[in-house]
């Protein structure tokens, strides 16, 4: 079953800005889906339309089979939203923020209290429940928005840059929690600028740029498109110059740190076999940059070049 189906969705703002130029994509129920793109690409507009905060110009949106034009109430019941911008009632207590949201979704007070405690504990905010939301740190406010979005246990959760400003420890624990609720059946659509986050969590990725979808496939398929990967090797002993290795480009960054670029025709086994022959011992190895980040930059650059060329001609 499809959790989300979008067909030819367009949005032109009153100032003439065409934020979406006819996008199509669908998300399977239970998927963990990344919607990536540079700033101003149209991600937040798309999420705004799906969550009914932005009026679409044209196109169709269905959430679990409910068309937002004809079955808006049923469609809205299925979704939870963690927006990019802090949109809390800052004068309300942490507890009331979550309880009120429960009420807006029709949850009785008793059930709302149980759920509020559950999700505030998960987000490590239970001890702060009596405090006003304005007294929380930026990261805590984001966690409160996540607790608020989950309290009615939506089938489809939109996370628009949910971990911005959240420290690493809590971000990792949030990842674990998101994996957990996804495994339990919640479909998640994530936008993030931390591509490591998208690569680690998501099984499917769509890249949106200048109002158009430029890539939409399984994460593994997308990553396979990466033709060139760069690794950084820590060496056991220093080198005076970069060794020549057939089929690989090498650069000596520091005397004990070697950068190696690998094409699709060669494997890491080839690399290590040649390093062994040259008696170079490798202590550790890491990607120079996140693989998805590299691919993302390449796709966005290609689109930008295409737009520049067509506008020049």
């Amino acid at each position, binding site marked *: 079953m499809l959790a989300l189906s979008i067909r030819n969705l367009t949005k032109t703002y009153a100032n003439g800005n065409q934020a979406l130029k006819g996008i199509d994509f669908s998300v399977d129920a239970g998927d963990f889906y990344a919607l990536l793109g540079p700033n101003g690409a149209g991600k937040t507009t798309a999420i705004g339309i799906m969550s009914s*905060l*932005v009026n679409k110009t044209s196109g169709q949106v269905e959430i679990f089979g409910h068309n937002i034009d004809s079955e808006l109430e049923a469609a809205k019941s299925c979704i939870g939203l963690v927006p990019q911008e802090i949109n809390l009632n800052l*004068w309300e207590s942490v507890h009331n923020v979550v309880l*009120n*949201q429960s009420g807006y*979704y029709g949850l009785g007070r008793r059930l709302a209290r149980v759920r509020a405690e559950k999700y505030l504990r998960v987000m490590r905010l239970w001890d702060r429940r009596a405090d006003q939301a304005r007294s929380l740190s930026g990261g805590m406010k984001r966690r409160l928005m996540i607790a*608020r979005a989950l309290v009615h246990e939506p089938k489809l959760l939109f996370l628009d840059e949910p971990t911005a400003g959240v420290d690493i420890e809590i971000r990792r624990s949030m990842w674990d929690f998101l994996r957990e609720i996804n495994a339990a059946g919640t479909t998640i659509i994530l936008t993030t600028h931390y591509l490591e986050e998208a690569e680690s969590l998501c099984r499917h990725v769509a890249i949106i740029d200048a109002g158009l979808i430029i890539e939409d496939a399984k994460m593994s398929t997308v990553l396979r498109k990466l033709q060139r990967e760069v690794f950084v090797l820590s060496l056991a002993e220093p080198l005076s110059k970069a060794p020549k290795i057939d089929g690989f480009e090498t650069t000596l960054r520091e005397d004990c740190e070697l950068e190696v670029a690998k094409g699709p025709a060669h494997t890491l086994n080839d690399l290590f076999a040649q390093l062994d022959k040259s008696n170079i011992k490798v202590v550790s190895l890491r990607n120079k940059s996140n693989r998805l980040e590299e691919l993302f930059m390449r796709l966005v650059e290609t689109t930008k070049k295409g737009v520049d060329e067509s506008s020049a001609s």
Partner: protein
Amino acid sequence: MNIKLNIVALQTIVRKEVVRVLRIWVQTIVPPAITMSLYFIIFGNLIGRRIGTMDGFDYMQYIAPGLIMMSVITTSYGNVVSSFFGAKFSRHIEEMLISPMSNATIIIGHVAGGVLRGMLVGLLVTIIALFFTKLEVSHPIITISIVLLSSIVFALAGFINAVFATKFDDIAIVPTFVLTPLTYLGGVFYSISMLPEFWQKVSLANPILYMVNAFRFGILGKSDIDIGIAYVILLGFVAILFAASYQLMHRGVGIRE
């Protein structure tokens, strides 16, 4: 429409509004009580003694219903306009907009909040009035129904103001330039029979005149206008303003991009 969901959502908005009013009671309850006390002391007690009677009542007794109504009107309007615009400004209105509750529930919830605060302030002003004069309610049902309908009308007007407002200045324009003049010219402090004939006719175009006089009729049993017309006007305004609010919400004016 899921009725149970909307009832729970409505209760939630009303509870939230009541909590807000009580949390900032120094801003929401105390100022109208102080303002009205000053009106009673200055206009009713000091100046009123020299005026004598109006329409057969002590001046203090005559202005008391109008002052109670004035506090209800301004408070109901002010509560909704500030609460709803505040929610728009800090964007927590999105909590409601993404939820499955109906637009009517959002409107009714906020109007109910405004009416509750209006009634609370009205009750407080009535208690203050009793320190200065004697009030015996001649027609309880008319008194209660008129004050409730007037409160609903101005709570709805406050809602529409908040929908269109884009900055805090916008929520002060209507109360300053429309509401206050109409209230003062609405027969709170005088009987329109004192005016020249032309100005009496002009005054009849002021809807607040009907609210003040109908409320005064409920308490004192005396009015400048026909009570039936007051009900028609009030019910008409409720229907028109609710329909306008609903349309604005439905189209997303001022709240959806």
